[in-house]
């Protein structure tokens, strides 16, 4: 830099376009993949989903010979195949919250909202890019978790489960849908609360603290309420079978979509109304 010279030539640029939803989506994709925390969260989610299913499969398989009959009856191959989801969901939820709260804690949100002052396209783009990336990554992951766990346990006949068996494909793919939806729900919470710790705490409270609280209610109340609380409704999406006190996969999906849409609607209203 030759600072002594008076002239500082700023190159002109004639190709500035209008802000479009597609361009904002491309921008959000760049934001997502250019952060180490994002790449790590997704990598961890993939590894945990497959790793824990394989681990539980290996433990079950090696103990199978010493298990009592009723104990064996309790082991269902779909639970083994989906064990990893219970762990990796935390990585997805944290990522969902971080995608939005990371901008508030660093101040990036001011740059984002200055570039896109109508604001809502940023929220739609974040949700869309997150949903596509998570689904594209987690679909092969849940499939891998299923086939890896089956490769380990299928030598024991009762643990053998064909992918073509009724409902199995739906339950396995449902696992990926579940991860996408709780991630989007978590992102909406992050957008409402605008703070990483607060967003994660709100999610944990809704999903993991509310269910045990219900246990103190009368059983008839529990049976009426329990299927519809967020944790149960979202989990119904990837259940192979369901009882009389839980929602069907389609019902669970519908209620979960309702929760997610509601949270997103609040986030959208607040995003437009609040000062940044």
């Amino acid at each position, binding site marked *: *830099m030759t*600072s*002594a*010279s*008076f*002239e*500082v*030539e*700023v*190159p*002109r*640029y*004639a*190709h*500035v*376009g*209008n*802000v*479009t939803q597609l*361009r*904002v989506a*491309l*921008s*959000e994709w*760049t*934001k997502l993949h*250019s*952060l*180490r*925390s994002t790449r790590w969260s997704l990598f961890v989610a993939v590894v945990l989903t497959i790793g824990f299913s394989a681990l539980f499969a290996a433990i079950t398989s090696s103990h199978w010979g010493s298990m009592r009959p009723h104990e064996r009856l309790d082991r269902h191959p779909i639970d083994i195949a989906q064990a990893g989801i219970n762990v990796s969901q935390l990585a997805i939820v944290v990522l969902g919250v971080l995608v939005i709260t*990371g*901008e508030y804690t*660093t*101040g*990036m*949100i*001011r*740059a*984002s*909202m*200055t*570039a*896109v*002052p*109508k604001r809502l396209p940023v929220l739609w783009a974040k949700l869309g890019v997150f949903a596509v990336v998570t689904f594209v990554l987690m679909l092969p992951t849940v499939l891998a978790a299923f086939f890896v766990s089956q490769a380990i346990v299928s030598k024991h006949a009762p643990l053998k489960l064909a992918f073509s068996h009724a409902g199995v494909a739906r339950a396995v793919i449902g696992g990926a849908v579940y991860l996408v939806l709780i991630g989007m729900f978590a992102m909406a919470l992050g957008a409402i609360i605008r703070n990483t710790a607060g967003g994660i705490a709100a999610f944990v409270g809704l999903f993991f603290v509310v269910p045990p609280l219900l246990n103190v209610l009368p059983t008839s109340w529990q049976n009426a309420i329990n299927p519809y609380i967020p944790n149960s409704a979202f989990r119904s999406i990837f259940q192979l079978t369901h009882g009389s006190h839980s929602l069907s996969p389609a019902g669970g999906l519908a209620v979960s979509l309702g929760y997610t849409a509601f949270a997103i609607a609040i986030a959208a209203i607040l995003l437009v109304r609040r*000062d*940044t």
Partner: protein
Amino acid sequence: MIEAAGLTKVYGDTRAVDGLTFAVRPGIVTGFLGPNGAGKSTTMRLVLGLDAPSAGDVTVNGKHYREHRSPMHEVGALLEARSVHTGRSAYYHLLALAETHGISKSRVNDLIDLVGLHQVARKRAGSFSLGMGQRLGIATALLGDPATLLLDEPANGLDPEGILWMRNLLKSLAAEGRTVFVSSHLMSEMALTADHLIVIGRGHLIADTSVNDLVQRASKKLVHVRSPQAARLRELVAADGVVVSSIEPGFLEIGGLTAEEIGETAARNGIVIHELTPQQASLEEAFMQMTSDEVEFKAATHPSSDAKEAA
């Protein structure tokens, strides 16, 4: 062109910006001056629509900022508070913002070169010094080749070379016909950079004037005189409206007369003059004077402010 009319922002009990009306014209550098907490940053956030005004209105190039279809082409902004994700590299920060307007990668690289960040463009912005952060902010502001620039304390954290570079940059941008609106709490810096000044204190407009006018207005019109016959000269110039003080033998500070008048009086009376210097109040003093009632965080022991509060 930025036009504010009765612009007001209230946070709880605080009127951060209180009925500001001003216009920032293209082709010149307009300085936005005020002590810390005067409401400069809030005003800039209101211009950009980051905060909604409690009352009044502000438009950029004839429209609310939010209504522009290509906002970064209308306004390039550098905000005082950091607006960069600390975990992202400078290159990807700029690219992500560029992509919202379909701006190319080569434009991003051009601006990285322009602000001198090419060596650190791939490093996390969180590791940047304040000065590097300011340069990244300038690159962000210039991405969309904007007609209007809104820069909040751009000289913050820059080394002397960087400050000179910034000054030249602002003047070049204005010379190209752009509207350049720069805030600062340093009058001395603005005196060198700006053509026009908007001065605020506690959210109120204090002055909207050219730099030259402000200097004229602030001048105390004092003349320093050194003479071995000081006592005699003092008697000769004494008149209504003339104030003479002396802090040491042979030295006079004369108010109410020009240097020419004093020199001619001395010559007519054969008085030897060793020094005859008209004094201009510094812009810094003028600024302090103008804003002394409007400073939010005043040192409690400041004698003049104590006197004012006692009165």
